[in-house]
Structures are given as C-alpha cells and as structure tokens.
C-alpha cells in the first residue's frame, strides 16, 4: 500500500490507516489523519523534509518518518 511519504506534490489521496498503536500513531490521528480523510500533498521543505499537507482545510507539516506510517487507499493515488 502507498503511504503519504510517496505522494507527489499536487496529488490527492484518502487515508486508509495509520500503522501502529503507540503514542506517535495517536498523535498523527489527533492531527486529523484518520481513515477516510482526504489529503493533498502541497509541498516539501527545501531540505527534503518535512512534507506539507492540506487536510481538513488546514496545513499540516509531517516528517517523512511519520508520513510513512500513514497508508493511503489504493484507488486514490491522484
């Protein structure tokens, strides 16, 4: 399954699940990345990390290591 970390800039997707059940997973979900949420990748920081996403009408920046834990639904890669 594709994760948010593999998304291209400008592409949209829908969250399928967040891996793990530790407090980092909880925090990612608290930020609004719960299954079913639409995500648009809007940018990458000049040094390549973190990523900037548009979710729920606001912008969230997420490190690649965190983005790798958020899997996307298969049919929604663009």
């Amino acid at each position: 399954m594709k994760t948010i970390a593999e998304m291209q800039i400008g592409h949209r997707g829908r969250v399928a699940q967040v891996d793990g059940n530790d407090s980092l997973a909880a925090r990612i979900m608290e930020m609004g990345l719960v299954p079913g949420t639409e995500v648009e990748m809007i940018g990458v920081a000049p040094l390549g990390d973190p990523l900037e996403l548009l979710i729920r009408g606001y912008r969230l920046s997420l490190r690649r290591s965190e983005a790798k834990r958020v899997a996307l639904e298969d049919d929604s890669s663009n």
Partner: protein
Amino acid sequence: MTTASTLPQTITVALLGNPNTGKSTLFNALSGVHQRVGNYPGVTVEKKVGRLRHEGHDFQLVDLPGTYSLAPRSPDEMVTVDVLLGRRGDVPPPDVVLCIVDASNLQRNLYLVSQALEMGRPTVLALNMGDVARERGITIDAAALSQRLGLPVVEIQANRKRGLAELKHELLLAVEQKFQPPESPFPEAFRDEVQRLSEHINSTSSPSADGPAETPRYLVERLLLDTGGYLEHSPWVTRSPGLLAEVKSARERLTVAGAPVPAVEAMSRYGWVSQVLDGVVTSSGERRVTLSDRIDRVLTHRLWGSVVFCLLMVVIFQAIFSGATGAMDAIEWIVEQCGEWVGGRMAEGTLRSLIVEGVIGGVGGVIVFLPQILILFFFIAVLEDCGYMARAAYLMDRLMSRVGLSGKSFIPLLSSFACAIPGIMSTRVIENRRDRLVTILIAPLMSCSARLPVYTLLIGAFIPARSVLGGWLGLQGLTMFGAYFVGIFRGDRGGVGVEKKTVLKGKRRRS
C-alpha cells in the same frame, strides 16, 4: 456546582485553546495589566492568572498552555487536564471553561472542544479569526453551531477587542445555568469498558488521604487510550491493584469489537466534529489564494525560501553581534563609573569590596547583556507574530532533527553564537518541554561572541601565523574555524547524549 442564586465570590475561568488561535491575545485583552505569571509547583509549566470585573462580579482567568489535545503525554498536558478537572490544589476548580477556536480551522479546533466537553464543566466557545475565515471563503453559521453544540458561541476578534463584552456576559450566564454535558462521542463498546474499569477502580482502590474520592471518567478513558504508558505511574492507577491487567484485556476486547485503541478516539471525535459542522460551515468551493498564501509560497519555496531565510538570519545575527555593541559599551561604562564613584566614597575594606565588586560588578555583568536580549526578543516577537517562526521551523526541521530536536530550536541555537543568554531565554517559543531543555543545555556549547577575544588571544599566542593549503588559508583562521566547529559538533553530539543519558529520556516526538 452553582445554582442561579449562589454565584461564587470569584468566578474561575479556564482559558483553553489550540496554539496560534489568538489565545494569549484574548487573555491580554480580557485581563489587561492585571496579570500574574508564575509556575505550577513541581513542574516547569508557566501559570498565568489574570483578573477582571464584569457586571459587579470578579473573574479569575487561568490561561492554560496552548494544546491540540487533552491527552496527557507530558507534564504540561497533565497540568492542563488536572486544572480542568479541578484536581490541582493551587487552582480552584474552574466554574466555566472558555474555549477559543480558530474559525478558519474549525475541524481541527473542535477536536479539543470535544475533549473539553467531557470535563463536565460549563463551556463557552469564543469563535476567533472570523476575518481570516471570510478571506478564505468560509462562512460559519454561529447560531446553528451554538445549537448543535449546545453551547453559547460568541464571535470575537481578539486583536481588535471585539465581542469581549458579550463574551463576559455569556461566561456569567454559563456559570448560572446548569450544564448539560453532551453525549460521549465514543461507541458503546468503549463506554462499557470505561464503566467496567471505573467500577474496578472503585472496588479495589485502597483509601488514600490525599487522593480525591472518585476518579473522573475522563481519566479512566485516558488510561484506556494511553498506549504510551504515561499515566501508568499516576497514584490513582498504582493504588488500584490489577487495574493495568484489566486495561490490557479491555484493549484486546475493543480491538475485536472494531474499536481499536487508540484509533477509536480520533475516529469518534472527528466523526462527531463532522456531524456538528455539517451544514454549519460552508466553503465557497475552491480554496481562494490569498495574499498570505502567495507570500507563503515564496517563503517555503525550495530556492527562494532558503534565500530569504539566510538573509533574515544574517540580519538578526549581525544585529545581535554588532548592533548591540554601542549600548553594551555604554552600560559597561556606566557600571564602571558607578563602581568608581561608590568606591571613592567608602573606606577600604570588605564592605566596599562587596558593594563595588559584588553588587555593582555582579549586577553590571548581567545587565550588560540587556541590549542583545532586547534586540533578539524584538526580532523573535516580530517573526512570531507575522507567522514566520513556523516557516523557519519548517525550513530547518530536517537539520535539527539530526540532533533529535525540531526546527524551532534553530533560532535560539543560532543566536547563541552571538550570546548564549538571549539564546537560552528565547527557547521559550519551543512548546515541547524536552526539546526546550535539550536546546537550553546545548546552547552554551555554541561559541558566543564573548569567547571571540579569548580565542583570538589564545590563537595569537599559541598558533604560528603560517599559511597552509598553498598559501590561501591561514593556520590561525583555520584554528578559529576549528574552535567554532568543535562547539557545534559537541552541541550536536551533546544533544544526542543529553537525550540519551539524562532525565530527558522521554521519547522523541514533534511538538
């Protein structure tokens, strides 16, 4: 609990909200100069209390640390939860909770509101930044929102002091009326497990002198959701034998029931938020590109973002380095004159030495840094208020994450090259306690400007003025570079070391 006729003498209001929602602006607008800033005993969490009067009633306004969630995973968050639940002896239980939300980002902000409502206290919602929302083409039906939530909703504009009188009025009304807590957003299976755990706690807990009689439902929920194990050592948990085993089996049952912990919380709450906002918030379709969006595009651009950032840092660095020299020399001169004046009027002895070298010299040694501190704080205030600080943290995060810190540590560390004192003081913008302490501990390892003369002296004395690398690089200059490099390298390794070997063993995470 208060009824219509018996209002408490002083109404305690807890001010809660996400970071960057204008919470501090509202706090200042409401309490003006009547503020006290201190610390919660036992933890380094800032405690801000303000006072105000309205319609003949005294209000005590407690500003809680800005947070996205009431899931306690650090001392700051634990303080917030304890204050709201009335479990801290140093703050009276709040009579009403004032929740400030950013109208342009309601989904995210209502997550916190959903948790706050479980505290079972009267709650008033302050809808701030409506102007930003309108600019983005978002319309909010405040009356409908109020009805859906079952809470008073007041539209305010904290920076223009609009809507404050109505807000104070609603706070007063909310205390007078009986609060009807809304239904829990959690699925039934989860609520049943919480009920079961509560019963277990009540039947097994050994009585204790200091603990409150009953553990609030919210804390039991948190324990069930807290997979990170932060709450496991709380006194109310350890007092109840077998509780953790119960929690474990409850989690297993919930996974089978399709409500896995901790995902169930975010899913239930965001589900509730969507229901509340459905039809209440309308967006004019496409996200409008505002001027602020365009500026943002430049500031976070791969090339231009870095260029602007470097230029800004050069300006700040230069200002702290050389802009402050005149003022610092002046302060030094004044202190010297004072010392001489006093010294000339006192008899030789211990007392003179104490006053001239101890008091005047000591205080002078501290206030000489004032110009640098003021300059750095001026820049930080401007950058923070115009939102550039968040961009800087975004740009520098990659670099700082190597040391186990976030991008927010960059400016404090950079300014430590000019002087570690303002650098350390400016770490207050870092919300994450662990990151803040690590930054404070490694800031003095950066070579500050006061060390420059020492380096120059030592290098002049011990390093020969030879050229290396075919004559275009001086050995002395190279040594100077080496001195700075060793400091940075020590800082870098130190950051990792401090993290691993000290009390800050907390897990890495983003603030």
